[in-house]
């Protein structure tokens, strides 16, 4: 237990340093993107004096280190400034838009794990036979097309030609749900509104599947490859020699050691979905943070860019810490090496 706490402490420390680095990097990059944010914010008809006034209000007329110090000072008070895109505090925007993206990404991640891993196990278990070939073809198809292509294909198939699923939004217009967590699936359950819950699930299925498809392919391919390697290990041969059932060998002896590399990639995929979700969000008119992030970058909305990137980076780091802890939990060698190191 002490070793895991030590690992957690070290990861948190590293994450904090990474966050500072990310904030400095994005702060600098956001300011070299072409275009004057004040001019863009005030619109094409703004006068030079108005632009200068806004530049002064945004501290854009000061040096970069002074601007960064000002940003850190505001951040320490939980103030990310005002978005020039929505004219609201960036924190208000993040609180409003983040749950929609997290809900989508969590479900997509769940689908990725629940479908990708079993497909990988199936392919490895029947290596060289038709289930293996089928899984490999499916995996190749899903990996080779990005999420937004799947989004459009799924929309055409299951909303346009076969109108089985809704096309846009998070819930049907007729439902009014009081916002508690911002996660509609949870809020509808808390409200005890079964019809609204059904509607929220109905709306999220297509975007979540579209977002998860490439991850499913990757998880399946990786799990298969790792399990095929594991099947060559002597202890698996011994299990066969003892006459254990193939399914038991696959489940109990081959899968667990193969899971560790897959878990790392799944963790990365999961976090990457936060960024990749924007096109899927755009296709399904999903009002999430990823779509907001792209819009603010295009408008050079400096405060909103910083806020969005920091939140996505933070989520990325949290997911990585969780994955590291899971791996440490699954692999005793890592726990022991951590303990020895500490």
């Amino acid at each position: 237990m002490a070793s895991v706490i030590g690992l957690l402490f070290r990861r948190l420390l590293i994450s904090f340093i990474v966050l500072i680095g990310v904030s400095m990097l994005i702060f600098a990059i956001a300011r070299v993107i072409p275009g004057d944010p004040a001019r863009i914010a005030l619109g094409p008809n703004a006068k030079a004096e108005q632009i200068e006034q806004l530049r002064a209000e945004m501290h854009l007329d000061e040096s970069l280190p002074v601007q960064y110090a000002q940003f850190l000072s505001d951040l320490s008070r939980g103030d990310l400034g005002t978005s020039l895109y929505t004219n609201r505090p960036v924190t208000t925007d993040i609180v409003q838009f983040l749950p929609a993206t997290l809900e989508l990404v969590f479900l997509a991640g769940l689908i990725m794990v629940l479908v990708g891993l079993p497909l990988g196990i199936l392919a490895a278990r029947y290596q060289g036979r038709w289930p293996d070939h089928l899984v490999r073809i499916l995996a190749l198809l899903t990996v080779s097309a990005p999420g937004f292509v799947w989004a459009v294909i799924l929309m055409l198939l299951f909303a346009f030609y076969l109108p089985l699923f809704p096309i846009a939004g998070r819930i049907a217009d007729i439902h009014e749900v009081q916002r508690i967590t911002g996660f509609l699936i949870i809020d509808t359950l808390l409200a005890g509104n079964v019809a609204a819950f059904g509607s929220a699930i109905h709306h999220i299925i297509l975007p979540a599947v579209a977002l998860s498809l490439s991850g499913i392919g990757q998880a399946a391919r990786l799990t298969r490859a790792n399990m095929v390697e594991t099947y060559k290990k002597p202890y698996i041969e011994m299990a066969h020699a003892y006459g254990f059932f193939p399914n038991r060998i696959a489940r109990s002896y081959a899968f667990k050691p193969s899971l560790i590399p897959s878990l790392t990639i799944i963790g990365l995929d999961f976090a990457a979905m936060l960024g990749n979700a924007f096109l899927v969000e755009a296709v399904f008119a999903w009002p999430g943070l990823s779509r907001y992030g792209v819009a603010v970058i295009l408008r050079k909305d400096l405060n909103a860019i910083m806020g969005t990137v920091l939140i996505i980076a933070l989520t990325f780091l949290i997911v990585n810490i969780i994955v590291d802890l899971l791996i440490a939990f699954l692999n005793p060698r890592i726990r022991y090496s951590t303990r020895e190191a500490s």
Partner: protein
Amino acid sequence: MTRKTTLATVLCVASLLSTPIFAETVLRIDEVAVGELDPAKASDYADSILMFNVYDTLVIPQQGGPGHVAHLATSWESDGATYTFELRDDVKFQSGNSMTAADVVYSLERMQALGAGLSYLFTDVKAEAKSDTSVQFTLAQPYAPFVASLVRLPIVDMAFVKANSESEWGEEFLSANGAGTGAYGVKSHNPQEETVMTKSDSYFLGVPDVAPDTVRLRYGLEAATVRTLISQGEHDIASQWLPPEVIQALAKDGAQLLTESGTGAFYFKMNTTKAPLDDVNCRLALSHAFDYGTAVQMIAINDEVSAGSPASGAIPVGMYGANPADAVMARDMDKAKEYLDACKYDAADFNIEVSWIAEVPLEERFALLMQSNFTELGIKSEIKKLPWALFAEQVSKPENTPHISQLFVNAVTGDPDTLLYGMYHSSTPGTWQSPEYLSDAKVDEFLDAGRSAADDAGREEAYKALNARLMEIAPTIYGFDRQSVFAASNRVKVPALSDASQAFGLDGMGFSFRLMEMTE
């Protein structure tokens, strides 16, 4: 149960059964990424739709013709620099407060203080409440289009804003809530998802029953999404920003096409400070070599509807000073060659930069058309893709401004002054509207005359002379008069966007929901 109770119950049930049940009608439309609800910050199309429905203005454009009619006002009079408006006394805000002259003064001062959106229209204006129903505007100098500008001064409920906000101007409050007299109130507003508006019971003109009960204005829908939604009957009016091929596909599926025109044009703007376009003959050569007919064909939706009509000159048809609609611009290669021969530069040395805005893919096609047209004249050109942000920065210096920039420009008040002054007056160079960097004394004179003319005839004369002068010195290739096209389901009738006699001639005002009719 007594006999009386039984009878009463039967009667109640019978009356309930015999009462017709009217289903709520919902209109669903979409626009670009974000809708700005604060009327003082409104500038683009989505903002205008919100503004014209949640708020009202003292005057509105006359439907189907030029000029303006009183709206929140009952009448007005002017001596050139002073305008006095008498207000209606029966107008209530959605909060229940009565609208008075103090609200008009507050709205103007608020707009000036925030300095955003179209506030530049009211820079040198002061307002004073003479009584509850009389307000006087004093202008620093006579400005004939002032009445037209008032269509961009929505009246805000001062008492309601102050009661709900700690700040004087209530910026945060009005970014999320409505405080107007409009026919529709804001039910909810998510700037990235949608704004939901519902009919106001207290609207001073009343809202017909056939108008939609609820309107959902959705933001940032993808073209594929809109197409699917309309096909499934889950959307009513698509934004004008759909690619032409999607509008064509929707029209083929039976969607009606709504249009809005007379407010602007598409221009190819030539940098008059950069060789060889600092020579008027060279500019005239290019403008005569351009294939106007093909350009208009490129934006056609079908045989009957197009996203533009052939230009007849520098001023769009329908505005003061415009040439007749049938006097269309046409390609003339012989004249182009004549002008090229008269140009002081050698055509073999030309390398014309033709830019296009990265966010508007259609402009790449026009750039290619120009390149092909100019090649026929023996002129080399280079196509340059510029993101909007970079373009806006580059045009602030003449040496960085490309030879040719492509732009849609609109008259934000419907008056030609707001279209032409910013483009061509020598005091306004270096903005996105004026990459020509034109400095011409006669043009300045005509533009100023258009502002100070005492009556409509004087303005017509000033703008006619301006049009002729702009054709003569060709700072711009006048591509086509713009027409916005909206694909719509057949569940809704929109006279202001389908019947020229009902059109407002102001961007976004055709989307006055109170004038629409839901048929299902």
